[in-house]
């Protein structure tokens, strides 16, 4: 009430308590009704879709057999240790290949964005590499490396696991190079000009001005490629090592029951969830930073 008084002293109209007008109250009531209505409609339609799907699937003539073949708890338990052991190989490969591919990608992108005529051969090589290996199917590259290279019978040929890893790094490096390049080229030229006019060398400009912004900007697509890589590392199994999917395939061949594949699928999803969550979080943070905070 003191505020009241002060204002009175100021000779202003005392602010009355807020009474929404009749029209405003009607508007609010209407909005509440609409919200409630939307909620009810959404609930009903979700329930209808859900119940119908359940009825269609469980009521189908082959459901019992599909359930036995794909969702058999006993088979799942039997297969779990082998599949999990395979997944461990996927994980180790993922970490190794991710580091390798990010390095190759970044170096290639830097080579492609070099200016100056003297660097033409490097630029041309980097361009050829990204053109070639983004087009080449991963499985063909794998075949060439894991079956072709050991065939040369050179001494000191690494194991097929390493060779397969190299195939993955080469292929994914080409994709990542283009993502990095997109990031580097999205930084406005005035940034580079400003940095150079402050006396920074080309290398310092890249290191302290361009790359920090560029990488932040492309981190969502980079993480996206990491999630894709996570699923593709398993292709190495064609060379002999047993990954999660291969382990599931072996179990399936023994019992003619497909449940081990479902087990592997679930494990892959569980493995991907943290990575996807990080991707989302990074995207959100980048968006907040780039737009004026609080503007949305």
């Amino acid at each position, binding site marked *: 009430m003191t505020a009241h008084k002060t204002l009175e002293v100021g000779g202003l109209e005392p602010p009355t308590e807020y009474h929404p007008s009749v029209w405003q109250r009607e508007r609010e009531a209407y909005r509440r009704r609409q919200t409630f209505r939307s909620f009810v409609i959404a609930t009903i339609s979700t329930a209808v879709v859900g119940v*119908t799907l359940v009825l269609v699937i469980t009521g189908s*003539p082959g459901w019992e057999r599909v359930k*036995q*073949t794909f969702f058999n708890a006993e088979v799942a338990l039997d297969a779990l240790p082998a599949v999990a052991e395979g997944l461990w190989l996927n994980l180790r490969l993922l970490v190794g290949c991710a580091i390798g591919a990010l390095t190759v990608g970044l170096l290639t992108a830097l080579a492609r964005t070099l200016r100056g005529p003297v660097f033409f051969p490097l630029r041309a090589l980097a361009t050829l590499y990204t053109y070639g290996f983004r087009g080449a199917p991963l499985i063909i590259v794998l075949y060439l490396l894991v079956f072709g290279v*050991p065939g040369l019978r050179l001494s000191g040929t690494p194991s097929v696991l390493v060779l397969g890893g190299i195939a993955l790094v080469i292929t994914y490096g080409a994709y990542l190079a283009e993502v990095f390049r997109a990031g580097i080229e999205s930084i406005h030229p005035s940034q580079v000009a400003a940095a150079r006019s402050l006396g920074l060398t080309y290398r310092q400009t890249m290191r302290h001005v361009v790359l920090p912004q560029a990488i932040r900007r492309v981190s969502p697509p980079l993480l996206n490629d990491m999630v894709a890589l996570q699923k593709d590392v398993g292709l190495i199994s064609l060379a*002999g090592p047993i990954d999660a999917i291969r382990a599931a395939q072996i179990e399936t061949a023994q019992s003619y*029951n*497909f449940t081990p594949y479902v087990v592997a699928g679930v494990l892959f999803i569980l493995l991907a969830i943290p990575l996807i969550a990080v991707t989302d979080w990074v995207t959100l943070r980048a968006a907040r930073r780039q737009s004026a905070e609080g503007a949305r």
Partner: protein
Amino acid sequence: MFLPRPARVAAAVSLAVALSAVTACAPADESDDEPDTSASGSECSPENLQTKRDGILTIGTDSPAYPPWFIDNDPSNGQGFESAVAYAVAEELGFSEDQVEWITVTFNNAIAPGPKDFDFDINQFSITEERRNAVDFSSPYYDVRQAVITVETSPIAGATTLAELADARLGAQVGTTSYQAITDLIQPNVEPSVFNTNDDARQALENGTIDGLVVDLPTAFYMTSAELTNGIIVGQLPPLDGQQEQFGLVLDLNSPLTDCVSQAVDALRENGTLAELEERWLGQTAGAPELT
């Protein structure tokens, strides 16, 4: 979705209609699948057999189809052991050669629960009790042994016992009992390698990324004589769990044809046809050393 109200209602209605249409469709399939019990068992003539197509026997196998089971990747030429057996079974059932149709069926399609496109599938399927939960098997048409093959330069060339294979890097094709023979019988200290096909495995053997390859005995003879340079058979493995491994024809689970096909296979064994075909196409498989 921020649709104006009438549009929203319309969308909801059409969704409901579409879904009810789906529901209405689903049970309709049932009538196709229902086995007509009247013709099963005793009457095994083409007129009474419930084949996929009337008067046609549809036989499945994978492509490529490998020797000595099939020759020239053409199952319909009657050459190769399994092609010959398939035609013999067809004849026994009363189908002439031109009433037999071959289709390509991959391993996964043969064992998947969905409707099958074939009447039976012949592709070196080993009969196990566990697998009977998913498919029907006919009576066995071939008793098979597994064998270890390698190249002359390999460290396991000349091995005579299972113990000598303990430190070998062994490989097998995925989904085969050959792989089970490695893990259950040889139990090597190095994790075995698994390949999509025997072709890939053979390449790995030639490259020296594996020391030996386990395949079934007829394939072992074929690969070492026709495909591998300096290929040798190390020896054949004892049967797993002391049980003779056998190949059977694969049919859909509870197929109305299983009994008739089994009777046909039994008849072919009794009248000596199977032994004759085995002699003709797999004749050279005698005399591989036994690994103990």
